[in-house]
């Protein structure tokens, strides 16, 4: 299991189209990937747009990403790149 804390940097936050990019990326990995906005708070499945939208993660939110599976390290790296690029919006 690999975890990393990432920041949502694009102005619109984790909105529907950004969530769709994350889902597309996450579905390329076999690992289970989850997002948690606050410790003990709502946990979202990175492979579900609906679940990600329910996080309501606005710009500046800090998200704990956890991947668990054979390709967990690669998954975390790819997701870190996507967050770093502001989902391609900054």
């Amino acid at each position, binding site marked *: 299991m690999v975890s990393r804390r990432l920041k949502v940097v694009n102005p619109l936050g984790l909105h*529907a*189209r950004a969530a769709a990019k994350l889902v597309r990326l996450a579905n390329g990995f076999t690992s289970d990937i989850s997002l948690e906005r606050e410790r003990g708070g709502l946990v979202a499945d990175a492979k*579900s747009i*609906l*679940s990600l*939208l329910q996080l309501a993660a606005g710009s500046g939110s800090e998200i704990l990403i956890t991947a668990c599976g054979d390709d967990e390290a690669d998954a975390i790296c790819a997701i870190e790149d996507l967050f770093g690029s502001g989902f391609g919006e900054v």
Partner: protein
Amino acid sequence: MKSKVGILGVPLGFGAGQTGSELGVNAMRLSRIRGRNLADHIRALGFSVTDYGDVSIMQPESPDAFESPKHLVEMIESSRRIIDSVEAILKDDALPIILGGDHAIAIPTYSAIAAHYRRKGTETGLIWFDAHADINTPETSPSGNIHGMPLATILGHGHPDLTGLCGYSPKLNSKYLAHVGARDVDEGERSQIANLGIRDNFFTMSDIDKRGMAAVVKDAIDIASQAPGGYAVTFDIDMIDPRFAPGSGTLVRGGATYREAHLALEMIAEHGGMRSFEIVEVNPLLDQSNITVELACELILSALGKTIL
């Protein structure tokens, strides 16, 4: 029936293959029939009417989509907004009158209604008028258009991000479903209906031919009204024959007549168990002299209890 009516426009048309049903909302809202618009006609029946405006629909960035279901991201986001809007009407203790839009909107509108009554500890039924079964899944759909999938979705079969709206699935227990008017059913839908064991919940045009609309609608009401919380009604205008309702995107000959459609809704109004009414697939771009739009408005009035005398 409730004394308050809440009109909601849902101008979502990307669930259909053809452009234009999103314009049905304002065509129905603005058309003047015998000098009065829809809201004034509803007021004349004795209801207080609030227009809740239109839901802000997230539009696809491109009309082309090759995945199934098409425009899933926009559908999920728009569904969340539609659910909030329908819930606002229900919280105001008003009867939702929902103007579509294509039939994909039934996914969020029925989800909102079912979830609202579920929170009150009760279940709702559904009467679905349509030429089509609308029970495709992303796997069986020949087109990938979401407006062919809403019934399957609310029964719990479809993309998990749509079946999972409001946090649970299925929204509808199939024993409380009545479908009226089918005459164009895809192969995959036939199998789906057989596999789910819901043939007896479908009253096809053939059944209407044999038994008459009154007998069929009585049975449909009997099924849906077994739900303790009452039932929603969703009416696809293409259930009516294209002679009377040409303004719709997927016309099929051999539908209900003008009077049969009114009869069905008059019987529902007399029964009194309806918890919401929705009309969809009215496409003014394909209409002739506004007759489909005006018929849609008249049907809303019949569903709300308008009688000839």
